[in-house]
């Protein structure tokens, strides 16, 4: 169970919110999203100083040793502020995978560097199928003496173009295993992909006989554990983003006058807002419940966290998409311009609804977790 008090959690969340308000305004987001790096190294440094890059990394590796409950709250704030950053890729997904794989030597080196923000890592999981399932792994590893060589393709790899280290899921004759590869290793071709959500960075990675180092012995189960953590974080981002866009829309409905009265006084707008509030509150509840469930499962609870996590995954994705799509409609023409923030949220909602599995996939997993 989370060891922090409500007050401590509120303080963490407040410090992130304050950083976002200072250093990650909408103007900052628009500036950063047009850069090749797609993130602001100065803000990255601030994240390091706040301890966010090591939030869920164990103290022995220089992290804060906190868990999914605190992580989810942090992500609500980064999501609300549209933070463009490799935080999710490196400090959640990669850190989660390494923690689950439990290779002490690797962790001592890599997790420490990730926690310190000195190394950016990401995970290459799926191939062209884009499914984030064991089936989707399209890199293979073959033993060559005491070395391992990787061949094949990983696709939709988040922030690979920024990464120093790639953690690659690859098929071996004995099943899927995890490998560490330097991003600059010979035989690695990283092709940045143009993304509809310009706050996101994706790349395709082709491996041609790349020498790689195995990480621990846990394979796909460690990936599943990392996915659980990243889905909780993503749900927090989605819940936070949905809430922020919703608040902006309600504010607009209070101040925009047409026909001599605020448009929020018209039932058409008012009723859409009421329905969206259910979506926003449900997303927040689902994301937090998933975090709590994962936290409890980590402490040996008998309740598996799967149902809560996959529920949050599709409920938050659908809520974020619905809220942002409806918000554009509620704004009218102004939101059809590039200068308005609505489309930034809508683009992000659409992207986050596909990352790490689409809603239909999570609905299936949710049912399976319920025994159906």
């Amino acid at each position, binding site marked *: 169970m989370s060891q922090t008090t409500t007050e401590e959690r509120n303080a963490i969340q407040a410090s992130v919110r304050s950083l976002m308000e200072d250093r990650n305004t909408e103007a900052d987001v628009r500036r950063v999203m047009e850069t090749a790096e797609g993130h602001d190294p100065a803000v990255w440094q601030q994240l390091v100083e706040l301890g966010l890059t090591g939030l869920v990394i164990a103290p022995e590796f220089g992290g804060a040793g906190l868990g999914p409950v605190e992580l989810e709250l942090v992500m609500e704030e980064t999501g609300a502020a549209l933070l463009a950053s490799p935080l999710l890729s490196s400090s959640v997904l990669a850190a989660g995978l390494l923690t689950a794989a439990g290779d002490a030597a690797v962790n001592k080196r890599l997790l420490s560097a990730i926690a310190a923000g000195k190394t950016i890592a990401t995970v290459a999981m799926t191939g062209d199928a884009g499914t984030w399932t064991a089936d989707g792994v399209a890199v293979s590893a073959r033993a060559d003496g005491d070395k391992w060589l990787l061949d094949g393709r990983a696709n939709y790899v988040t922030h690979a173009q920024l990464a120093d280290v790639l953690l690659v899921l690859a098929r071996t004759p004995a099943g899927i295993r995890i490998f560490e590869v330097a991003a600059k290793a010979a035989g690695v071709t990283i092709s940045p992909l143009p993304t509809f959500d310009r706050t996101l960075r994706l790349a395709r990675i082709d491996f041609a006989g790349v020498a790689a180092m195995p990480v621990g012995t846990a394979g796909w189960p460690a990936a599943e554990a990392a996915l659980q953590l990243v889905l909780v974080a993503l749900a927090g981002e989605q819940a936070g983003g949905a809430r922020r866009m919703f608040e902006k829309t309600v504010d607009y409905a*209070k101040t925009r006058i047409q026909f001599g*009265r605020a448009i*929020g006084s018209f039932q058409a707008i008012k009723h859409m*807002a009421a329905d969206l509030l259910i979506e926003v*509150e*449900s997303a927040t509840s*689902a994301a937090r419940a998933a975090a709590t469930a994962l936290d409890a499962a980590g402490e040996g609870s008998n309740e598996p966290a799967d149902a809560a996590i996959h529920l949050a995954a599709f409920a938050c994705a659908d809520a974020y998409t619905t809220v942002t799509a409806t918000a554009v409609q509620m704004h009218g023409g102004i939101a059809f311009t590039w200068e308005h923030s609505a489309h930034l949220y809508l683009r992000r909602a659409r992207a986050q609804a596909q990352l790490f599995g689409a809603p239909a996939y999570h609905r299936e997993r949710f*049912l399976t977790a319920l025994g*159906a």
Partner: protein
Amino acid sequence: MTTEISDDALRAEVRAWLKANYRPEELRGATLWSSTPETRAWLTKVLEAGWATPRWPAEWWGRSLPEHQARIVEREFAAVKAPGAGQDRGNLYANTAMAYGNDALKAHFVRGILTGEINMCLLYSEPGAGSDLAGIRTRAELKGDNYIVNGQKVWTSGAMTADYGMLIARTDWDAPKHGGISFFFLPMKQPGVEVRPLRQVTDESHFNEVFITDAVCPVDNRLGAEGAGWRVLQTALAYERSVMGDGARGPRNASAKVSLIDLARDAGKLNDPVLRQDLARVIAYRRLNDLNNARAKADLKEGTSSPIMSLGKLAMSRILHEEARLRTSMLGAASLLEGKDFPVSDDANFLSLNAYFTSIGGGTDQIQRNIIGERVLGLPKEPEVDRDVPFREVRAG
């Protein structure tokens, strides 16, 4: 006159008292709307022991307990499913009488209400005043010491057995709509009050229409000042919301207790991928609402006010309609049938109609969205064409 007692001692006392006095088998046969001699005897015993109104002072059969201790009493009763405790929080009629009745009214009614001697019902809605409750046209005219009441009420539960009805009626037709309403305890057992059961869309009759023709209501039975009835009503409605669930009944048959997943399995559809997507979506609606409610409760505990509470009824409306739709779609042609020989179909069909109890009753979904938009989100109200107009000039139809 507060008697200090520790929580543990109180708990022990209630427990011992229940053990000594409570015989559940004696209380069978009572309903929500009418009491039996045995229940009346029991409720009297609860009252006299101080458990019916533990928060109230001794002169009102109470013990002046603080809130958290009153909850202890309620929890002990609830643990053995014994009725009658904590009516100072849960009894709508007694609380309304205490809050707004004059001394004569309180003396006359409160004890009887608490002990089940007096059965009550609600006379609020009218055929012409549904969503717009302040548009009521039942008329009460003061003649000497009595009001003479004429009008028609509808959607009244328990009117058949009620001794008195909590009535809103118009006493001033020149005041704007909210300002001309008064609130009464109308005697139901009189020739001017005719109760007719209302056949519902589900082919059941849980409600009545009440036709009121020159019925007599003593002036002492008015709660609050003349013309101040809208405020009394708001208090009464708030009591009602704070203690009642949404009131929608579950299915009529045993399939009520079967989960949607098991129903899908029974229908041979659990491997149908189309159905599975739908199933996950519908199960999620209820789970998300449960999570929202749990979060709202936790928020309240920490002293943060929660807007989430206001969403429950609207969310439940979607849950019930969607669950009914899913049940129907699982059943396919079997949903053509009804009746006790086809209990699963019967439930699906019943639920599909009964979902309107929640999406219409107690404020339609549309009214709920207005309330959420205005009270929770702070969106401005619509222009109200009839708000400040003398009521006799307001359009009706």
